[in-house]
């Protein structure tokens, strides 16, 4: 549970590596040899239509599904097969599609699920809470309220804040803007930038192309369970034929 | 329970030929006949104690088989079979005590009626409940019957139960003979084998297919349009009837009825037979019953009567659930159901 038991990170390599990962749900073959990397502190976008396996990729990294084949590594150490709670403590934060905040727990208790860790002195706890409440003032206001009573946008913020409680090295963000008003979308954009400035890597799964291109350094595009295209975000824009090919209606 | 996916098409496809060139049907019936032959010949090969033991195993096997209809085919775990078994036993006892000379067929009828009554009661309340709730309420209901039988001393003999004499085997105008150990064994065998064949027919019929569909995916089955509650009720009734029949046979064989058999532990034993032998196979539970009783008997013989045989057997049971959920015959499940 503490930093002492985690294996020493391999220096200089990418933070997260997927190599030829095949994942199945029962008999359904969802990921057909997915390969991608995320460097330390980088924002990487993962684009693709519905059902191509983007969420499954995130779940594989988080250990919520086990790959049948292929390599998943965090800081050079293979993590496939490890329990999700261990990976969370090793520094992977997960913000799922549909947020999945603990509805019957208060905002503060939601945060506590990540905050109550070994090695968290009262000072560190307070500092972390202060930082997160500075990011999300509205959560400070609502800290005693039950999670289920928050609005959609507030729940999204709580989900991200909760992941931040783990002081993660990378946050897996699954469609954070889904179902949110445009005003909230730009707020998400700001949050991603703030996190990036903090040095947290982000693997961003999104259907919102402009947001993804603006926020990421590199992007991958998936189709039918595999990566089909990979480039720097600056090399491509919304009207690129590649975008139309893999994401067009 | 991990269950194999339902394969509705099998009944319709042509049966493939086995490696030896024989069709599945042929192999199955040859096997069946071989087993029957061995069981028929048993009285000539076994000493009296073991013959009686075998006969009793067959009766427990029938009880376990009836339970398999619910657990293995409909997907409902029931702890209520002690009630059906017990009421079958007491019903038969009633017939044998009230009517003189005691009549075998009347005993069967009374026993089946008693069991049917219990089954109706259980079915009415329980079939609306799913899974865990159903299991718990069947447990509680079997205890209700236990309490009634235990306290209604005037009718049921209370704690001491009822004692009666074994009826003769009679076919009007043709036969009137006392049962010997051998003929009783054959009679029990005939009833159990007949029940097996009937149940097999039922599970392979369209009705049986719906039951299995309920087991696999109840909401789906309901969505398709089947009146799931009704199928469940019929399943409980059928299961209860055969359990009651086992109770009648037990009464006839042992000439007494006791409330112990209505205690929910009997239901527990039944479930153990099912799980050990393999649910969803009909034959598996009989094997499970045999295995359990044999182990129990051997442990008593080797270590003495006071040996708590349920400790090792209980551990085996839990281990089977964890490591071998299909049970002893589970591997043959699809084969046995074709």
């Amino acid at each position, binding site marked *: *549970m503490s930093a002492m038991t985690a294996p020493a990170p391999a220096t200089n390599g990418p933070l997260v590596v997927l190599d030829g990962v095949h994942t199945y749900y029962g008999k359904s073959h969802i990921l057909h040899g997915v390969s991608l990397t995320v460097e330390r502190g980088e924002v990487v976008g993962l684009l693709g239509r519905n059902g191509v396996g983007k969420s499954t990729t995130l779940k594989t990294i*988080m250990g*919520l599904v086990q790959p049948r084949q292929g390599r998943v590594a965090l800081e050079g150490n293979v993590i496939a097969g490890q*329990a*999700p*709670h261990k990976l*969370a*403590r090793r520094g992977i934060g*997960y913000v*799922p599609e549909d947020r*999945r905040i*603990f*509805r*019957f*727990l208060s905002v503060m*208790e939601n945060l*506590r*699920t*990540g905050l*109550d*860790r070994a090695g968290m002195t009262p000072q560190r706890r307070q500092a972390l809470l202060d930082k997160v409440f500075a990011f999300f003032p509205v959560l400070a206001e609502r800290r005693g309220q039950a999670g289920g009573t928050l609005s959609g946008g507030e729940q999204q913020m709580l989900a991200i804040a*909760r992941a931040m*409680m*783990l002081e993660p090295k990378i946050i897996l963000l699954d469609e954070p803007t889904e179902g949110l008003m445009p005003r909230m979308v730009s707020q998400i954009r700001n949050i991603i930038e703030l996190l990036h400035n903090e040095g947290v890597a982000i693997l961003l799964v999104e259907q919102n192309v402009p947001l993804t291109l603006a926020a990421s350094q590199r992007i991958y595009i998936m189709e039918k369970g595999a990566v089909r295209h990979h480039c720097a975000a600056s090399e491509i824009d919304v009207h690129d034929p590649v975008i139309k090919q893999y994401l067009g209606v | *329970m*991990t269950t194999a996916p339902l394969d509705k098409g099998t009944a319709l496809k042509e049966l493939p030929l086995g490696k030896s060139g024989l069709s599945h049907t042929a192999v199955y019936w040859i096997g069946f006949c071989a087993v029957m032959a061995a069981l028929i010949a048993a009285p000539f090969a076994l000493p009296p104690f073991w013959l009686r033991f075998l006969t009793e195993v067959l009766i427990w096997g029938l009880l376990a088989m009836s339970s398999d209809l619910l657990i293995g085919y409909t997907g409902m*775990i029931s702890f209520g079979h002690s009630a059906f078994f017990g009421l079958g036993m007491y019903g038969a006892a009633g017939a044998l005590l009230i009517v003189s000379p005691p009549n075998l067929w009347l005993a069967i009828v009374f026993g089946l009626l008693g069991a049917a009554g219990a089954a109706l009661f259980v079915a009415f*309340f329980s079939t*609306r*409940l799913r*899974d*865990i*709730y159903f*299991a*718990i*309420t069947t*447990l*509680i209901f079997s*205890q*209700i019957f236990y*309490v009634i039988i*235990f*306290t209604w001393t005037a009718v049921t003999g209370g704690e001491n139960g009822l004692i009666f004499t074994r009826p003769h085997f009679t076919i009007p105008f043709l036969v009137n003979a006392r049962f010997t150990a051998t003929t009783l064994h054959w009679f029990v065998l005939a009833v159990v084998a007949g029940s097996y064949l009937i149940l097999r027919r039922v599970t392979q019929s369209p009705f049986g297919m719906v039951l299995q569909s309920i087991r696999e995916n109840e909401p789906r089955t309901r969505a398709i349009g089947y009146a799931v509650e009704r199928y469940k009720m019929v399943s409980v009734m059928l299961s209860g009837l055969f359990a009651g029949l086992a109770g009648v046979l037990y009464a006839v064989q042992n000439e007494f009825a006791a409330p112990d058999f209505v205690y*929910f532990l009997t239901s*527990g034993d039944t*479930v*153990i037979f099912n*799980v050990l032998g393999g649910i969803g196979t009909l034959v598996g539970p009989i094997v499970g019953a045999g295995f359990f009783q044999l182990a129990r008997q051997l442990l008593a013989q080797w270590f003495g009567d006071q040996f*708590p045989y*349920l*400790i090792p*057997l*209980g*551990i085996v*049971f*839990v281990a089977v*659930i*964890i490591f071998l*959920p299909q049970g002893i015959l589970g591997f043959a499940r699809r084969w046995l159901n074709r």
Partner: protein
Amino acid sequence: MGTIGTFLHAIPLDLIIIQTVNGIVAGMILALIASGLTLIFGIMDVVNFAHGELFMLGAYMGFVVFVATGSFWLALIGASLIVAILGAALQIVALRPLIGRDPLNTILATFGISLVLQNYALWQFGPVVRKIPEPISAEFTLFYLQYPWYRILITVLSAAIIGGFWLYLKYGRLGVWIRATAQDRVMAQAMGIPVPLVYTGVFAIGAAMAAASGVLFAPMVGVSHTMGLDWVLKAFIVVVVGGMGNFLGSIVAAIFISLLEAYATIWLDPSQAVIVSFVVLILTLLFRPTGLFVATPR
């Protein structure tokens, strides 16, 4: 008006009060047993058939510790700890492998465990009923009875244990973990909560509650290997009537049913009074199957 008056006169008021007290005493013990069951079911989705046996073993362990130390309170604490550890061990060995499988597997597994535990107790301690004496033998006068203070004590203690645990669930660190795990097991894991450990802990706590009630109740009824059987059924009825997984509901149901049974014994034989709980169950299943005391029937 006259008939009502005659009817009221016919009911012995002092008997009613005595039975109310008895009902609440029995109800609190039942509540303690049932809340352990509810906890385990509500958090882990496990129907713990072995709960009655944990209650029984708690009483036996209490007896053993009492014989060794002469202190009732050490017996209470010691038994709870021993059974908590036993419960944790059982969960790790037999129930963890079954996580994710059809929940009926756990019913069967816990049933198997209950058989083993029961027969172990019979084998180890024999059929003789053991006695743990009450820690306080003072009595007070309740109408025409000498009523033992001890019974009031166990009522208060049971309530304290339940209340203490409820507070811990609400405010303690493990409490947040437990509630998060109960609501969303997968997300709890993604938040770094060691869910397998939480499950083991919950089972251990439930076992400890069962054991504590065993020790508390032992001076009243004596310790025997069939204790568990008698109570587990009632506990299950309470859990169903209270609404499965509903902590508060099971407590209310326990007291409700115990009160009804206590009143019933004014007119009925005790062995027939159990019918009351059966009737309540049947009515609940007929009209409010999700539980009599559930706030909004789902």
